[in-house]
């Protein structure tokens, strides 16, 4: 039963990674850039919820909603201020800027909230599930993480494949110039992508901080990197890939921690990434773009 427990914890963590990875993959897929500040938006989301619940005494769901809005706006601002001026620049310049934005957010949080981590109160308020006469208990946070991540994957897939804005995103992802020739406003489409990705980061922040209730200015950094690994693992740019990658990374991390070595758990995650990249460089569901001249 310990194994099942671990597996469930892994799936829970993996679902959170999946939600973060979706943000990474969406922005990479459409804007063709790695937004390394994505993890820190999670942290901002966490602090917004924390502040709304403790200082403003708002209820949990309203606080999450405010965090989603705040992060959506933050995502749009980051894109406009930091990345948009670099649309024609080399990808290295954009990458360095993204790292800069990441440090900026972390240090702003440090300045505002101090270095002492705060204790986060879970925003999830659903009953836990008990199986096998109490031998297995699925925490409410776990149920929430799994349900929310599945809903997001399904919702996002439908949005991208079935709506006009979604199809515009696919077009921009493949060929920005050709998309413009269709009358698609590329800048607005990229803005929308950042808005959605950052809104998802706020949701990930709510799930992450509810499951692991310690919040500091670097809370988002490591999960951000793991989720990036998950996105690459599943095939960056692919929505179902992010889900599969997230779940696998979460399960590998927890099982590695339980059965191999707690200290090596992170190393195992990255080792798996290296192996995957050697065997299948495009990731599990990654598409190889066929260059037809």
């Amino acid at each position, binding site marked *: 039963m310990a194994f099942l427990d671990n597996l469930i914890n892994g799936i829970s963590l993996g679902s959170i990674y999946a939600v973060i990875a979706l943000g990474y993959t969406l922005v990479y897929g459409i804007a063709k850039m790695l937004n390394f500040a994505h993890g820190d938006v999670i942290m901002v989301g966490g602090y917004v919820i924390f502040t709304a619940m403790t200082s403003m005494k708002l209820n949990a769901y309203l606080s999450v909603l405010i965090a989603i809005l705040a992060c959506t706006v933050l995502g749009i601002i980051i894109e406009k201020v930091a990345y948009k001026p670099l649309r024609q620049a080399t990808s290295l310049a954009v990458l360095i800027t993204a790292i800069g934005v990441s440090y900026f957010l972390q240090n702003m949080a440090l300045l505002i909230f101090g270095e002492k981590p705060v204790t986060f109160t879970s925003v999830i308020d659903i009953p836990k599930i008990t199986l096998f006469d109490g031998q297995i208990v699925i925490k409410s946070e776990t149920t929430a993480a799994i349900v929310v991540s599945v809903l997001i994957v399904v919702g996002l897939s439908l949005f991208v494949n079935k709506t006009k804005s979604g*199809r515009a995103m*696919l*077009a921009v992802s493949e060929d920005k110039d050709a998309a413009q*020739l*269709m009358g698609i406003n590329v800048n607005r489409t990229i803005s929308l992508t950042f808005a959605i990705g950052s809104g998802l980061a706020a949701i990930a922040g709510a799930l992450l901080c509810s499951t692991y209730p310690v919040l500091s200015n670097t809370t988002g950094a490591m999960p951000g990197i793991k989720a990036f690994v998950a996105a690459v693992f599943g095939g960056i740019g692919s929505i179902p890939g992010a889900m599969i990658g997230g779940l696998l990374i979460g399960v590998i991390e927890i099982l590695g921690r339980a059965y191999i070595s707690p200290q090596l758990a992170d190393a195992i995650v990255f080792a798996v990434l290296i192996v995957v990249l050697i065997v299948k460089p495009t990731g599990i569901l990654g598409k190889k773009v*066929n260059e037809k001249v």
Partner: protein
Amino acid sequence: MAMLEIKDLHVYYGIIQALKGISFEVNEGEVIALIGANGAGKTTTLHTLTGILPAKTGSILYNGVELTKTPAHKIVKMGIAHVPEGRRIFQQLTVLDNLKLGAFTRKDKEGIAADLEMVYKRFPRLEERKTQIAGTLSGGEQQMLAMGRALMSKPKIIVMDEPSMGLSPIFVSEIFDIIESIRKDGLTVLLVEQNAKKALAIADRAYVLETGRITLSGKASDLINDEKVKKAYLGD
């Protein structure tokens, strides 16, 4: 007044000047050919026209509206469709999705449905393959898709960049037949072609571009017999 009036257009790639002050005009209902060698500035002209490239100086007037200050995504809606060089279809989307993206700026559902029928009638092969991923089409079929996609925006003028490039002779003839029929439907066509012989055969008028300048212009039927044109572009 001409439908499209290009005046003293200068365009740069960084510090390299690609267009050194070109002027020409396109009247409604005409088929105009731009011919010239590689690097003469034909594609640059079209890209500037549809807003992909910025103009340094000069003007492009379309029915009196200045296009050099208009963002690319708004130009389509004004009635100018661009069939880009190398087709640039969305390879990973289906044929139908590509055609729907062509009508991106339109909101008239019935009109879009009617135009989809029209495109299928013109290109029956696209209807047969509507659920197929566009990247799996042959070069000729991809060219048809690019043209169909452009027609889906219900343009008044259609700008085509090397539609016959890289196609087998059968497809080349087919593509030119299609251009002919598009013109018969009352569309204005601005055609850039390396296949100068075919282009001059269907065009009303033509302009010859050489390293960023227009060096020759006139009736297509005159240019096709011009000694200089014959020697440089027709391979006679």
